[in-house]
């Protein structure tokens, strides 16, 4: 039993780590293409080289992020079988349609990414822009298909089991999970917030270092628009997701709130540490009756607490409540910033000031924090979803402990994954940092370039990544990173 517990912890840790790693890239695959659709469209319309510079810069970052996302996603599809063979044996059939459709969405994305990244000179400017659309659409659809799987694991529907064997599955089962709608909207908004926030953060840092040119201003404006428009919408989506959890996974909601005692007049608790032994939250901010009010619109509404399930069937309240608090605090901060920025923009417009976006030091510092805040909130949100599902791998049908591999290779494989991924992430950060610093590539802003849409001189990674012009490495800008 001790051995099994070790195996299960390792398998869970490995899955959590690989998923977190993958999601950090996948969000850019969802968000960046839509932003590229906008910037390249502006360039097509105006011929303004600044729009082209932004497009090129982001497309190169996208190339790297997409590739790492693609290979880490492949690892995940294998890991389902390697780490959770019993889960896949039993429910693989039910999830087949979702994964197949996700596979084709990924196919479409990969094909058009190839055309987009390497087709600068082979396609007309307009055709090149059009290749972004299938990328953006299939990236979003990939999210949709994957969320159907996760929603189904949380709140399964459409399967009939007898004597531990699945005897009937509806092919469309994953699409019928009531958890699908709220999870999908919540995740898509999160992806936009993360991608937009990281872009905003990079340009805000650049501006804080004194590079206050049009290039930086526009980059900041686009990223900040994405994150700050999505943030208030996320409040609605999050509320929907919370209600869905309350209805279909009451124990998850109880863990999120650190609510032990079933009953009416349940408090809304933010922060603090849920104590497993006493069932109390220590040091949290408690609003009496608020949770009942939020969920049932009355303080008399009875909320299910963790005490309604035997201890071995409860999710880990400490972890889930902690992650939930992180997500709520960061999300609220982003919503507050969204409101403040909106207010400032309106005021500047009334006064006829330009640019509309406030770019004082405190504003830029706040903008620089949006990216990391959104990423952290997203990871915490996934911890809430997955931690709150415990101890089930398929809610009410199969426990995580029954799904795990019995092999003893788990420890070295996990150590290997950890080393490999951390090494790759480190290298990637160095590369993105080089891309991020120093402003647009010099070659894109040379004087006398034709102002209308033309065949741009592409970065030429085909020949090993060096050089956009004759003999000149495509270091961005003047090569100084301001440090």
């Amino acid at each position, binding site marked *: 039993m001790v051995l099994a517990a070790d195996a299960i912890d390792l398998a869970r840790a490995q899955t959590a780590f690989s998923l977190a790693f993958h999601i950090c890239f996948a969000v850019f695959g969802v968000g960046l293409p839509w932003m590229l659709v906008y910037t390249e469209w502006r360039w097509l319309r105006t011929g303004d080289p600044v729009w082209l510079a932004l497009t090129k810069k982001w497309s190169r970052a996208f190339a790297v992020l997409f590739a790492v996302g693609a290979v880490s996603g492949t690892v995940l599809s294998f890991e389902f*079988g390697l780490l959770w063979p019993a889960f896949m*044996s039993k429910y693989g*059939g039910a999830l*087949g349609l979702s994964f197949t459709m996700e596979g084709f969405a990924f196919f479409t994305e990969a*094909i058009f990414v190839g055309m987009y990244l390497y087709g600068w000179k082979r396609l007309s400017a307009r055709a090149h822009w059009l290749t972004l659309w299938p990328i953006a659409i299939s990236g979003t659809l990939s999210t949709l298909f994957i969320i159907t799987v996760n929603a189904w694991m949380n709140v399964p529907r459409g399967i009939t089991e007898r004597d531990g064997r699945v005897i009937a599955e509806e092919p469309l089962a994953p699409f019928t999970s009531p958890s699908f709608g709220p999870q999908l909207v919540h995740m898509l908004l999160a992806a936009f917030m993360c991608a937009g926030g990281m872009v905003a953060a990079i340009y805000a840092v650049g501006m804080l270092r004194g590079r206050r040119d049009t290039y930086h201003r526009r980059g900041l404006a686009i990223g900040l628009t994405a994150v700050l428009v999505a943030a208030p919408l996320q409040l609605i989506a999050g509320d929907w997701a919370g209600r869905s959890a309350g209805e279909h996974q009451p124990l998850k909601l109880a863990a999120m709130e650190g609510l032990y005692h079933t009953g009416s007049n349940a408090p809304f608790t933010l922060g603090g540490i849920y104590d497993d032994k006493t069932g109390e939250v220590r040091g949290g901010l408690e609003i009496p009756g608020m949770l009942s009010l939020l969920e049932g619109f009355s303080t008399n509404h009875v909320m299910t607490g963790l005490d309604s399930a035997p201890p071995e069937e409860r999710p880990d309240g400490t972890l889930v409540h902690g992650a939930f608090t992180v997500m709520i605090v960061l999300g609220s901060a982003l919503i507050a910033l969204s409101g403040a920025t909106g207010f400032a923009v309106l005021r500047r417009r009334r006064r006829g000031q330009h640019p509309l976006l406030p770019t004082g030091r405190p504003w830029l510092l706040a903008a620089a924090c949006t990216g990391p805040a959104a990423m952290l909130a997203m990871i915490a949100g996934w911890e809430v979803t997955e931690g709150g599902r415990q101890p089930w791998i398929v809610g009410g049908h199969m426990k995580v402990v029954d799904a795990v*591999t019995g092999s003893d290779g788990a420890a070295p494989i996990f150590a290997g994954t950890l080393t490999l991924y951390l090494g790759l992430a480190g290298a990637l950060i160095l590369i993105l940092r080089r891309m991020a610093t120093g402003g647009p590539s010099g070659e894109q802003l040379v004087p006398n370039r034709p102002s209308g849409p033309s065949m741009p001189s592409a970065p030429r990674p085909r020949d090993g990544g060096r050089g956009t012009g004759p003999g000149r490495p495509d270091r961005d800008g003047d090569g100084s990173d301001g440090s």
Partner: protein
Amino acid sequence: MTSADLLLVVMVIGLTAYALLGGADFGGGVWDLLARGPDARSQRRLISASIGPVWEANHVWLVFIVVALFSGFPPAYGVVGSSLEIPLAAALVGIVLRGAAYVYRAYGAGAAGPDHWWGHVFAISSTITPFALGVTGAALATGKMSTSDPMEPVRSVFGLGCGLFAVAATAFLAAVYLCKDAGASPVTAHLVPVFRRRAFGGAVVCGVLALALLPLFAHEAPVVAGRFGDRSVPLVALSAVGGVAALVALGRNQFVVARLAAGLAVGGMLWGWAIAQYPDLIVGQVTVDDAAAPSPNIRAMLYAVVGGLVIVTPPMIVLYRLFTRPEPVE
């Protein structure tokens, strides 16, 4: 033919596509590893240029096969996952490192270590993956794999031989394909003889390995070998004809014919194995009928596959056509 059989046919088609397209990308990495002499740099450039726009799309075939396996034949995937973890983990390391190293070299501009380091990572990991997948395939044919001994597949001489054969086959494909890419531009035309020689070398190694593996095959995988003798001889003959035809066509500078013939050589071998493997998925452990998911689910997947292929095939053709010619110069 049941819907499970049909799904299996679709999976072998996917596997063939992965071998002929993705396999050649890995084979390019093998030649990157083996590039020597004053031309080495331009060889590596040609390899990098020819796989750049397509490797991600080619890679998706593998995801397609894995998804079809775990959705269509879930118990088989459970067995594969718990007893082939060593070769599969090795293949994954190769896949992750190959992809990451490729983009890090292409876009990194040296920010995360010199490009040639990533070049070496790219080349070595490109060799690991086909080797590990060859070992995996051999284990499915011999059935010598168990949950209690994950090292078993890597101890088998036949398995290791199949791994080498897979590397040689991908290298052969890549060399044949690269001849055409090299011939497409005067700048790289001097590389044609280099890759022609390599294609010959690859073909010879494949032939020698195949002959050496035959007795082991009969001994280690008697069930599949028996069916192989009964069913697969025409396909193997086709494969041999394809191999010879590819070399003849290369000698005459008919690069397109050479590509098709090389594809026939590798594809014939794969189908020969697949047909001999049927109806076992893992010999002695799992058959198609044991493992098939309920047929409504498989039918739903087949509809999704057909719909998906209708959507992705036209852009895929456009992708390959777009990059057949060298980049226009301004």
